[in-house]
């Protein structure tokens, strides 16, 4: 590592020298190359510009359309088809909070547990451990609607048979984001250098004591970042909930095991968005604004956490 660092300026010097020589031999770069170079750089800038403009347009449009519906009523009133000017997101917000609480209760122990097993205990030369690894990577990319089908056939009906209750929706979302938590936690655990483990083991600690008192505390910021990102994904997910009973029109406060139905923020936004009337479109846009603010806050916190507590070993 040190040799590499010392040689970097020397390398750059050698490159600059060789380049100067080559250009002198070729009597500057051919004109076509210079033009092509400029055009290419322009195209790249255009690409970045389009991506950023798309993001910006989305935010501005949500604000332009939704600002008229922004008020405290939006958060505290139930939805209504008869009085769109008074309609809000109250049951959806309460539903989303409960859904997310369930997701956290499930993915934190299970996700971190799986990550610890795969990083600290599993022998990677065994085929079954490699299978688990490929399987998790694949699960992370399975379409969310497939998790909805799983939830419908396995959790709502079938073996678990919970019925169309909020807890079933929560479990479905938890399974959906579990691979994200496992992958992020593994990366955080991997970043802890082996010397920490060896030092602890050499002092007589058992493997679990080493993990609990040394490895885990050192990797908590990375794990927390992964969990927050996973939770924000669960918060914004709509498709699987449609299949596991998040009914679009719930006017009462949902409970985890209530059988009268439940709603969630993105599902309610979806319902408003489907209605062509101007008032409902404004409600949808305002809901999107609320959700974007919450998600942005969560993601910024996650990024801040990562940068603030990132340990350099």
């Amino acid at each position, binding site marked *: 590592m040190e040799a590499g660092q010392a040689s970097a300026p020397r*390398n750059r010097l*050698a490159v600059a020298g060789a380049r100067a020589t*080559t250009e002198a031999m070729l009597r500057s*770069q051919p004109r076509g*190359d*210079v033009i092509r*170079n400029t055009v*290419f*750089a322009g195209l*790249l*800038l*255009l*690409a970045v510009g389009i*991506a*950023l403009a*798309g*993001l910006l*347009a*989305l935010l501005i449009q949500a604000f332009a359309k939704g600002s008229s519906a922004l008020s405290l009523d939006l958060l505290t009133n139930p939805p209504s088809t008869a009085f769109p000017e008074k309609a809000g997101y109250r049951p959806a917000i309460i539903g989303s909070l409960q859904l997310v609480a369930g997701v956290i209760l499930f993915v934190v122990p299970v996700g971190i547990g*799986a990550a610890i*097993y795969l990083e600290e205990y*599993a022998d990677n030369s065994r085929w079954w451990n490699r299978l*688990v690894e*490929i*399987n998790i990577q*694949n*699960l992370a*990319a*399975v*379409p969310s*609607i*497939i998790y909805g*089908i*799983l939830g*419908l*056939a*396995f959790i709502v009906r079938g073996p678990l048979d919970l019925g169309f209750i909020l807890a079933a929706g929560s479990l479905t979302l938890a399974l959906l984001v*579990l691979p994200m938590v496992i992958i992020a936690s593994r990366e955080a655990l991997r970043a802890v250098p082996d010397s920490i483990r060896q030092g602890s083991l050499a002092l007589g600690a*058992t493997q*679990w004591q080493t993990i609990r008192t040394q490895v885990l505390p050192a990797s908590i910021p990375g794990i927390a970042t992964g969990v927050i*990102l996973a939770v*924000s994904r669960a918060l*914004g*997910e*709509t*498709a699987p909930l*449609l*299949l596991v009973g998040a*009914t679009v029109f719930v006017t009462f406060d949902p409970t985890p095991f209530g059988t009268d*139905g439940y709603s969630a923020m*993105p599902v309610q*936004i*979806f319902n408003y*968005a489907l209605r062509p009337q101007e008032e409902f*479109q404004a409600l*949808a*846009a305002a809901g*999107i604004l609320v*959700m*974007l603010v919450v998600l942005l806050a969560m993601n910024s916190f996650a990024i801040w956490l990562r940068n603030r507590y990132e340990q350099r070993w």
Partner: protein
Amino acid sequence: MLQAESKRYGERAIKWLLALCALLSVLTTTAIVISLIGPTIGFFEIVPADEFFFGIDWTPQFEPPSFGVLSIVAGTLNVTLWGMLFAIPVGLGAAVYLSEYASPRVRKTVKPALEVLAGIPTVAIGFFAVSFILPEIIVPLWPEGLLGGAAGKPFLALAAGLGIGLMVVPIIASISEDAMSAVPRGLHEGAYALGATKAKVATKVIFPAALSGIVASIVLAISRAVGETMIVVLAAGSTPKFTLNPVESIQAMTSYIATTATGDISTGSVDYKSVFAVGTVLFAMTLVMNVVSIRLVRRYREVYE
């Protein structure tokens, strides 16, 4: 030989408990496969396989119903095609810019912005697609009468496609940029030393060297596009059509599932089973793409890291 004084049953119990957590992921996959297969077999007992796989009419509500899955597969491909035509150049351009051109300060603002874009819920992108991209961008810009024209249509495959394209740009950009950053400095420096311009280095050296990662990012993006639900439900409509015409209202596989399998559907009906048959096709398509992309990423990691 050093040995622990006790057998340490607690340690072993913990290990097994943790292994159980990891095993849960395998159980999830197994459960997905089981829950798809059962009703799918039931579906094929009612609907002949050749009608399903080769038919181009998807009309479950008609009497007699027709279940030609190619119609909604075409809908998915239609949206994916136009989305990728947008996302591949934009995503790769952004990746090359970030890895080769951007100053550290620009990187520090552009990368988080792309992360924000990646974190936007798809229901918001779907709303944006149907209420902004369609009326404000496609309708004014689309040449009148071309392929049937865009004006006056409330849903367009192209609107959903562009929305999906916007959604997958961060995926392509970030994975491709990772792959480009993994190319050793020596290759850059060698090319610069020979007098190559920045554009030449990027296109002739970095791009080929990072190709497996770039292809992986595109394959993963296609897989995401094929599996995306909310954007197509909101912007592409629900009229199954066997066409790749971007200015048509179509139905994608995911939107059929999402609009059919809502709470009140009865378990034994053909419609219920058809959801699982379509789900199986969707799962198989994305599984193949995911495995290909995972392998490709591993390849560039093996070569350079």
